[in-house]
């Protein structure tokens, strides 16, 4: 077992021993389930209306259910993922195990990678459980799988970005609550940048500001558009956040 694997195994064990993952997971699945139900009922009501007017109706589940659901999940992830990441470094510093980690013969990049991978795996398993919903819908209706799959790709990339911001925030402080709020704050700022970009209009600056926000990149994927530009955005911002975390952890020893 390599050191990174050892860290992943240890972090997963810590996650599943504490109640946090169960509570967060239950709330996440409950809200996603409720939203999916609401959008479906809404779509059903629309279908009935159309039937009355036109006599027949072709329901588009992709537009009425999945796009709405993927849009809402951005916000759920923004609230929930910082709760998962907040303990990663803050707890180590609080409990004085930070010194132990940094005096172990492993690199800081291995520590950061191990911690990120562990929480990423937790996130993937939660996201995997929401996959039951499209699978069940597929039994009773007909819809286009392609945008659903790219939407999930978008969720995975968006989640990875959120988690890396959370890792960075956790490295900054020894207080878990502060870490959670810092990451929520950073993510909201990233979110609102798209609004600022729209305000600046179709100028170079406006486009640059919009590009910095995850909103348009995620929207493309939800609409079924896989563009290299968006993939580059997610992967490079993920790398940047993890690199910054590395620097913050490294600099924590100097104080």
């Amino acid at each position, binding site marked *: *077992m390599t*050191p990174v*694997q*050892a*860290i992943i*195994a*240890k972090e997963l*064990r*810590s996650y599943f*021993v*504490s109640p946090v993952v169960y509570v967060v997971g239950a709330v996440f699945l409950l809200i996603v389930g409720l939203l999916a139900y609401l959008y479906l009922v809404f779509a059903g009501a629309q279908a009935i209306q159309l039937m009355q007017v036109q006599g027949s109706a072709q329901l588009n589940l992709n537009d009425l259910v999945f796009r709405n659901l993927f849009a809402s999940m951005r916000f759920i992830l923004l609230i929930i993922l910082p709760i998962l990441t907040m303990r990663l470094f803050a707890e180590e510093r609080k*409990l*004085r*195990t930070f*010194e*132990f980690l*940094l*005096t*172990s*013969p*492993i*690199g800081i990049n291995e520590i950061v990678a191990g911690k990120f991978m562990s929480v990423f795996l937790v996130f993937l398993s939660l996201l995997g459980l929401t996959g039951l919903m499209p699978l069940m819908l597929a039994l009773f209706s007909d819809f286009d799988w392609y945008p659903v799959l790219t939407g999930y790709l978008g969720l995975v990339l968006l989640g990875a970005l959120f988690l890396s911001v959370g890792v960075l925030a956790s490295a900054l402080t020894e207080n878990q609550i502060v870490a959670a709020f810092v990451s929520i704050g950073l993510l909201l700022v990233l979110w609102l940048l798209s609004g600022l970009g729209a305000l600046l209009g179709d100028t170079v600056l406006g486009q640059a500001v919009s590009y910095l926000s995850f909103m348009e990149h995620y929207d493309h994927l939800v609409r079924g558009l896989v563009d290299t530009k968006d993939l580059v955005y997610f992967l490079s911002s993920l790398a940047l956040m993890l690199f910054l975390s590395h620097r913050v952890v490294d600099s924590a*020893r*100097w*104080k």
Partner: protein
Amino acid sequence: MIEVQQITKRYGQHTALDRISFSVAKGEVLAFLGPNGAGKTTTMRILTCFMPATEGIARVAGFDCADQPMEVKRRIGYLPETPPVYQELTVTEYLQFVGRLRGLSGKVLTASIQREIERLGLGTVQRRLIGNLSRGYRQRVGLAQALLHDPPILILDEPTVGLDPKQIIEIRELIKNLAGTHSVILSTHILPEATAVCQRVVIISGGRIVAEDTPEQLSARLRQSEKISLILKAPAADTHSRLKAVSGVQNVFTSGDSGTFLLECELGRDVREEVARVAVTSGWGLLELKAISMTLEDVFLQLTRHEEGLGPDTATASVESTGQPV
């Protein structure tokens, strides 16, 4: 094995360590003594490559702490002030994690864990969560962690804190057994501990080394004369002058009229036999006769007190604030 040359560490304006130099030979046990905030933990953190020194060179097993930290870390077992344990893991799981971080695996890992569990008496708690263990057990788990990969160098920050007296003796025995094959640096507040397990003592105060020697030599060096305390049941009027007449006695002090005398004698001469003979033949009723040797406590206080503003030379000594938690 350990070589420290002119190490200085500054936190902003505050100087925590001021040009410290010392070395530890292979198989030697060195104690770090000093009041709180003297710089003991800072020195240890520099040696374990947790933080870099502002100036100076620290070398461990021939590797520079600043240039080759990985090589240094591989060869050191470190127990910080607070045992670095994860409460949500059991003792065995924790040691497995530690071993994997240090590149142990398979049979070697299992054997190492078994060895440390036996050595530190953790057998009965090995399947329990560390969060549910008492302070003493956590400290022992911390020690097991430091010893797990059998490093040639051990750095222990107050290893016996939180242990009960029986455990303290066991841990001291353990450290004594490590001497010879391992180089050990330990910091402590408890002076008899330094005397009991260490070949050499470094007394550090206000970020500077104020003394470095064996425990015996340190107390000898600071002793200007031999002192003897004497208690008599029925001292006579001429007792004072007759005691002073004993050859080798330089001064006699009486404390009140209770029959307690303090004799100051020439360095290196034991006058106890002669004093006893005089007392018995004169029928003074000898109750007690003992040599007063300076304990490490006295030495320690004498060397460090001016830093704390307790001694008479406070006015001339530079009293530094040591507010930094070190």
